[in-house]
């Protein structure tokens, strides 16, 4: 499946949060993300991502292992995504290291997640703060087959518009890149 996703900078976070709170119940979660690469950086060069994410939520702590392939949509950067839950986060890190991968960057994302149904699709809208990066971000995504990406992105754009986010606010800036720049 492809994660058809758009990300925007939010200029009025209070208003966007209010509109989202009216549409769905927020799940407030803290993500602790560690991105891995091969020592030669070949995953990044191939536009791929390998990540262990521990999610601290209001009623659970869970860890997911994720691999994202190279983007299939130039404009949005939407990527094929494979994700599975793992029971033991420490073991997941140990397995990746044991296979020769090295942690490239680790940081926290603070998220308000909203499960929305819009235009006949299940969407996830997430208001995001990364403590090391200025500003608040909004991600809206939905999982679709590859031949549906363009249509899905149109629907995602429509949801963003309903939240007061226009095309000029969209960004392809990555958190990993911004955090790395901040730390360098």
């Amino acid at each position: 499946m492809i994660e058809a996703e758009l990300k925007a900078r939010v200029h009025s976070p209070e208003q966007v949060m209010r509109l989202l709170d009216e549409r769905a119940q927020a799940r407030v979660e803290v993500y602790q993300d560690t991105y891995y690469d091969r020592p030669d950086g070949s995953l990044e060069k191939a536009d791929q991502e390998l990540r262990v994410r521990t999610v601290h939520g209001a009623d659970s702590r869970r860890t997911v292992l994720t691999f994202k392939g190279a983007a299939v949509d130039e404009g949005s950067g939407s990527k094929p995504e494979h994700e599975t839950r793992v029971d033991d986060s420490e073991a997941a890190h140990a397995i990746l290291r044991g296979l020769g991968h090295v942690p490239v960057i680790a940081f926290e994302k603070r998220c308000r997640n909203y499960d929305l149904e819009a235009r006949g699709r299940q969407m996830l809208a997430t208001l995001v703060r990364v403590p090391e990066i200025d500003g608040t971000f909004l991600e809206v995504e939905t999982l679709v087959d590859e031949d549906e990406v363009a249509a899905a992105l149109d629907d995602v754009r429509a949801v963003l518009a309903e939240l007061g986010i226009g095309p000029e606010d969209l960004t392809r800036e990555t958190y990993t890149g911004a955090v790395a720049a901040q730390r360098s």
Partner: protein
Amino acid sequence: MGTTLQPIDLPDWAWERAEVRQALRARDMGAVFRHVQQYAGASQARIAAAAGMTQARVNEIINRRREVSRLDVYERIADGLHMPDDARHLLGLAASREKRSGGAAFDLAAFPEVVRVYAAQNSAAEEIQQQAREAEELDVLAVRGLGLIGLNDSLLRACLPRDQGGKGLRVRVLLLDPDSDALVQRAAEIGESAESLAGGVRLAEARLRELLADSCDIEVYRYRMLPTWRLIRMDSTMFVSAFDAGWEGHESATYKVMETPHGPLFRGFRRMFEAVIEGAQRTV
């Protein structure tokens, strides 16, 4: 549809028109909305989006079937319509605060420091152990610490380096001074003799001292203040509960607090822990 969410920008001259000023002074939001429709060409949907309310609500206000009375709603409307300060004053609002692009209050309200609440320490046990296994620093503020760390089957004992192949976890434990007045008071509060409570603290100290032999990086201190907070910190995550009269620490509801840039709880508790260490006597 495409224009529904464009921001509404009424020209300054419109805000200065007598009938608009009169509507603001009377706090008649129905009339204000009608003028916004008239001068900005804004639909009810656009006004609704700008003011963070439903279109149905805007319709009711415009048609006088509902009145706005809450201050926060006036604030929202004023912000959403980008009212100049003069117009805000007529409504009885303070001047527009500096552009609120998030800020500490928003961050803490939207992304709270307390990420999870447990009915008692028991329900947090598994998670505390998981965190401890991955942590580099472990701080514990307890009374005698037998349930937490002192005994073989204590919550955190299995996570200590001895069983972990010496992974470099730094452990600091603060226990109540067995010779302090606070210990006598605490013993009375939980219906135990001071002798028994003091004996428990000494037992915990002895058991923790054994960890030194396994080259564990552990420090144990005695503090003399009245036990108030019970803290377990692992790196940037803290589990917080309280001691009170007739209330054992492990029975208290427990908050999981995660460090954020603006969060006062995590900072405050960490600072308090350091301050208690400063004034404490090291025994291990």
